[in-house]
């Protein structure tokens, strides 16, 4: 039963692809040129995003830490910049509603600070301690662009849901951190991966309305149908997905902003 659940989860991000063929057929009938899009000749199948957010990983939420806050102790509470790229395939167009399709995203953030001395007088040392996180997401993306296409309101709300994973590496001045247990003497390298879920809810503002002539020219020149400024609430729960018992919780919640381009 548990394995079946895992299989379903693995299918989740790619489920919309199964009906992509239908979308193609509908688009070929000319529906893609409906609404305001009729002014633009190039077809539209994808969306690319450039993303940035102020992010604080939820490392200290790990129950295994029993309330201890090693992340806060090492790096403080200030959020760090997380940058990323995303590519969505608008595989299925739902007339007078929007599009749905799979998407892939990748990001990077680095958190570093001066490590404190262990012995008095403590205080920051000259050694740097760092945590690098590389999040990857595979998701289904639902864009409700009926407001823009049918009513000319340049607002496109959207929803994303899928699987998330992140590679992480804890390091110090000399490279990847290594912890040696004082009791067992065993050494553990400070790198690993964490699995979980990815969820986002956002809204995009179509910038084409600011200069329709320029937007049309760019579409004709480069095939970009629409440019959006978006804001998104992102939640990355990297708690193991039932496959990992105590992963480092390098996910978290954040507000993400960026630009997206439909083409």
């Amino acid at each position, binding site marked *: 039963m548990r394995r079946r659940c895992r299989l379903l989860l*693995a299918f989740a991000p790619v489920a919309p692809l199964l009906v992509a063929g239908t979308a193609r057929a509908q688009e070929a009938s000319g529906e893609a040129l409906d609404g305001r899009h009729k002014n633009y000749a190039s077809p539209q199948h994808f969306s690319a995003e450039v993303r940035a957010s102020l992010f604080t990983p939820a490392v200290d939420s790990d129950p295994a830490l029993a309330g201890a806050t090693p992340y806060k102790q090492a790096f403080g509470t200030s959020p760090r910049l997380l940058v990323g790229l995303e590519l969505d395939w608008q595989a299925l167009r739902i007339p007078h509603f929007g599009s749905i399709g799979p998407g892939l995203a990748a990001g990077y953030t680095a958190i570093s600070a*001066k490590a404190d001395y262990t012995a008095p007088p403590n205080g920051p040392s000259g*050694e740097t301690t760092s945590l690098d996180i590389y999040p990857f997401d595979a998701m289904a993306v639902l864009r409700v662009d009926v407001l823009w296409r049918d009513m000319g309101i340049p607002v496109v709300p959207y929803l994303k849901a899928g699987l998330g994973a992140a590679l992480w590496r804890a390091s110090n001045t000399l490279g990847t951190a290594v912890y040696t247990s004082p009791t067992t003497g065993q050494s553990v390298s400070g790198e690993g991966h964490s699995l979980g879920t990815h969820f986002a809810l956002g809204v995009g503002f179509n910038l084409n309305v600011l200069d329709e002539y320029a937007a049309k020219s760019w579409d004709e020149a480069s095939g970009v149908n629409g440019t959006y400024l978006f804001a998104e609430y992102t939640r990355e729960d990297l708690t193991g997905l039932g496959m990992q018992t105590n992963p480092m919780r390098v996910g978290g919640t954040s507000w993400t902003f960026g630009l997206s381009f439909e083409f």
Partner: protein
Amino acid sequence: MRHITQSGGTPMKHRASSVLVLAAVAATLLASGAARAQSINAAAQPYPERFVNGQDVGQSTRPVNLNPHGINYADCMADMVFQYSVTLSGFPGVNSDNMQVWATNTGDCTADSTRGYGVSSEAATCWLVNVGLTQPNLQSSTTRQFNIPVRALVGPQTNTIPKAGTLVGDDGPSACLTQASFAATSITVWFLPLTSAGQADSNGTPYSAPVITADLVGPPAPSNVQIGGGDTLLSVTWNPNLDADTAGYDVFIDPPPGSTDAGFVAPTTMLYCPDTGAPAASTGTGGDASSDAALDAASLDAENEAEAAPQDATVAATPEAAAVEMPDACILVNSGGSGLAASNSTCASTVLSSGTLMVGTSVTTVSDSGTATTETEAGILVTDDSGTAVETGTGGIAAIPCLYTVGVSSSSCPPASPAYTNLSTPSVTGEIVSAYTISGLTDGVPYNVAVSAVDGSGNVGPPSVCQPGTPAPVNDFFKLYREAGGQAGGSFCALEAVGEPAGAPLAGMALGAVAFTLARRRRRNRR
């Protein structure tokens, strides 16, 4: 008829004699031309072979990125000799031209005035570095070798150039101190066919060897050197230099990583003796065995250089101190040893501190009778023949023993040698680099650190102000995380769930992709 014959014969006779005259003139001209078409060339081997203590060390002793065909301070101090192989032809012997070798840092020696002819000797810009050949008889191409001491090439750059036709004197190691600033200079060596009067022969073809870049002074020390402690390491930062000379930095630490004797560091010494009298073979600087050993090493160097030692080497204190004149004695410049390094605020290393050109903390004078007198003075500088301190405060050479350099392979850092003989690349390469981490240290042991800039010729400049630092354990994030009970870690592909097959999530995604592909194929088949 005779008249005709005569009259007719006279023009013929004149014509014949004219032809003979022309032939004679032509033959003379040809012979003269052949005799005066002196040719000098070294195209087969434009760069000279280098010799140190009579040993051929090849055409270069440095990596290709460190001005391998140029001259640096180490070359000069080693009393290196350049040997040019030059092919000569067209020199007929008696009553023909001489061939001499001249050097200049203004580019040209072919004009007589550059060699001091027709002008005052002060106006000369070239100096004679090898008397060459006197009226050689070398009609056909013949290769000859010409030796030129490096010190003869670099010595007269700022000193008074010898009067025309006078060979550059041997100034010994002081010739290596003639460069006024850390900026490199260009020296051109000319092989000139000259008349016996020393003037250029326009019929001869002079030859200039490839320009030599001479750089005898290291770049200034970087400023604002800061030390941060870490777990078995020290992080060193500094403000990078902005000059056009710096190509990297050498980082020095006292005591060296892995040293078992952190309490005492033997001093480094430099011995100068006049031409007359033997160099001091043993002179104590406090009776310590280590310092005696160091002195012996220095004495060996001094013996090699004794012949070339400055006649009137003088030692003068910094502007705050009075000059010490010792013209008739060997002079030992002692750069000092280190005591136990300070723990926090005071840098106790006398090895790494107060680095300027030929700086010492004491001077030991050994008279001919063997009496040793030691004067201790901070910042003592060796001066040039004119008594002027060469050190300008913006350049110099690090006299720190090479063993204190970190990040440099030991093979390029001979034992007991000063830092300027480091023939490898610097600890860090690049002028804008401003940080270095010294690892492999022992927690709790105080260290002293200094940084020198290194130029593109491998000269190691004077060290920065010495900074103390002590490695100590730190709490890095992963240590805090694991000590708090965190379980993650191991590797990027580590399994956190016991019994879970490797790469389970990736396998799941791959399965999804396969299912998707199959679904697409099935749909196509239906069509």
